[in-house]
């Protein structure tokens, strides 16, 4: 590696303590299986599975191409204290909370007894192999959401171990969602033991649960907060990555009723992903955000954060709203916006820009 532990960047020297709260190990199935309790030890002991585990039946995967599967990124192995120290030195962290990789997929293991056994085995391996508080190596005890009572017992057993700093809840792919009463034993055990619950998805396991996740939302607020922007982000991500604006360069899409803050977030997150994974969308000739600015417009209602004009103003600036935001009221729905609501929230916008937002952008977009 280009940097050594001695070469601490100047800007980091001002910081007293650096805690890396998501420091992954790259455990493999073969690391874990020897620790399985009976009867699983006996059953799976006859087979080692494949080399990395993702392709075997125990940990489901969505099978998407990424820079690790194509060999572009040489993801380091972290399966021993010595290998962990390499990463700790590279990041210049004083303490790390070790989180899993393969067990990010634990939430979508279908056999709940096997899931609990795999969590147990991972924790045994973690404590045996990785935890070392003298070297700042702490860990999060993985639990299987599928088996909450077993998970609670796992928390009770692990909490007193030196170096267990948290409970790790593999939240991607779970059903029902994390608010369900089913999980209360996990939360009660974590609370009683003074441990935080870390929630961490993998994109591959979220894909297995997105439709169910919508279906599992049990209240109107929770659905309304996330459903509109999530659905828009899924659709736009798919459209742009698969080249819809390239095939239809003059086609405009009007995206509605999901708020504003997700738009600059989505544009920047999309660009950030694209620049390390261009060959996943090889037809694109510009950044995803440029296609969003060119081919997509957004209607304003419902505006979140209306008590903070500086927030709304900056979000609209960051999305390029002077060119792509169009006023909407959603009257007479229960969350409709009155006409001048938005104007009071855009103090940095001059008259021309307000005119764009209130009419000109729509005139250019719609075939009136």
């Amino acid at each position, binding site marked *: *590696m*280009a*940097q050594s532990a001695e070469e601490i960047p100047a800007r980091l020297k001002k910081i007293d303590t650096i805690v890396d709260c998501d420091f992954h190990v790259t455990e493999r199935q073969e690391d874990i299986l020897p620790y399985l309790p009976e009867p699983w030890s006996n059953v799976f002991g006859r087979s080692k599975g494949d080399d990395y585990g993702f392709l075997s039946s125990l940990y489901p995967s969505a099978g998407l191409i990424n*820079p690790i599967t*194509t*060999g*572009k*990124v*040489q993801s380091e192995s972290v399966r021993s204290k010595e290998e962990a120290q390499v990463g700790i030195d590279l990041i210049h962290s004083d303490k790390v909370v070790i989180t899993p990789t393969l067990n990010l997929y634990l939430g979508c293991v279908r056999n709940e007894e096997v899931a609990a056994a795999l969590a147990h085995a991972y924790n045994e391996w973690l404590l045996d192999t990785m935890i070392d508080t003298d070297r700042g190596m702490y860990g999060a005890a993985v639990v299987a959401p599928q088996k909450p009572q077993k998970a609670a017992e796992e928390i009770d057993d692990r909490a007193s171990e030196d170096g267990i700093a948290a409970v790790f809840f593999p939240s991607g792919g779970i059903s029902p969602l994390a608010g369900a009463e089913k999980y209360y034993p996990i939360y009660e055990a974590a609370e009683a033991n003074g441990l935080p619950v870390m929630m961490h998805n993998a994109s591959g396991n979220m894909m297995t649960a997105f439709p169910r996740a919508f279906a599992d939302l049990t209240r109107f607020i929770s659905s309304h907060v996330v459903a509109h922007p999530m659905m828009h982000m899924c659709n736009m991500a798919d459209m742009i990555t698969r*080249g819809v604006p390239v095939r239809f360069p003059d086609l405009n899409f009007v995206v509605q009723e999901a708020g504003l803050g997700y738009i600059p977030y989505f544009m920047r997150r999309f660009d950030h992903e*694209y*620049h*390390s*994974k*261009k*060959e*996943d969308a*090889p*037809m*694109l000739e510009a*950044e995803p955000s440029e296609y969003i600015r060119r081919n997509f417009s957004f209607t304003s209602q419902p505006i979140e954060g209306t008590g903070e004009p500086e927030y709304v103003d900056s979000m609209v600036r960051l999305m390029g709203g002077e060119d792509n935001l169009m006023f909407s009221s959603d009257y007479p729905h229960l969350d409709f916006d009155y006409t001048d609501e938005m104007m009071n929230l855009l103090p940095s916008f001059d008259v021309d820009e307000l005119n764009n937002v209130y009419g000109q952008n729509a005139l250019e977009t719609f075939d009136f």
Partner: protein
Amino acid sequence: MSSEPVETDDGKTLYPVEPAANLGEGERITVNIKGREITLFNSNDEFHAVLNFCPHQGGPLCEGLLDGTLTMEDWEWTYSCDGEIVSCPWHGWEFDIKTGEHLSKSDYRVPTYDVVVRDGEVYVVE
């Protein structure tokens, strides 16, 4: 290194890296020139010199995979530019070793250096 830097008539300096015969097709060597790590690639029987520093987050760019990239023509996936693209092993940012250009982000560029071969020795030009 087998020889000393050579000053040229036009004010440049040739820094010797390696006898050309020692660097086979697809091989690379990283040397320190005036405090900078510079990697010399022999790719497709041409030499290319690239700074071993990813402008994204400072990763060791030239330690990464040297291959091609997936591209698209008429909406068909193709594999092209074999041996011309180096991927930073930290985050997979891809750069053309001939030009130093990032494949998707035009404002990111890694420095490249001219290379000459004299009397069987490969020099990086500065």
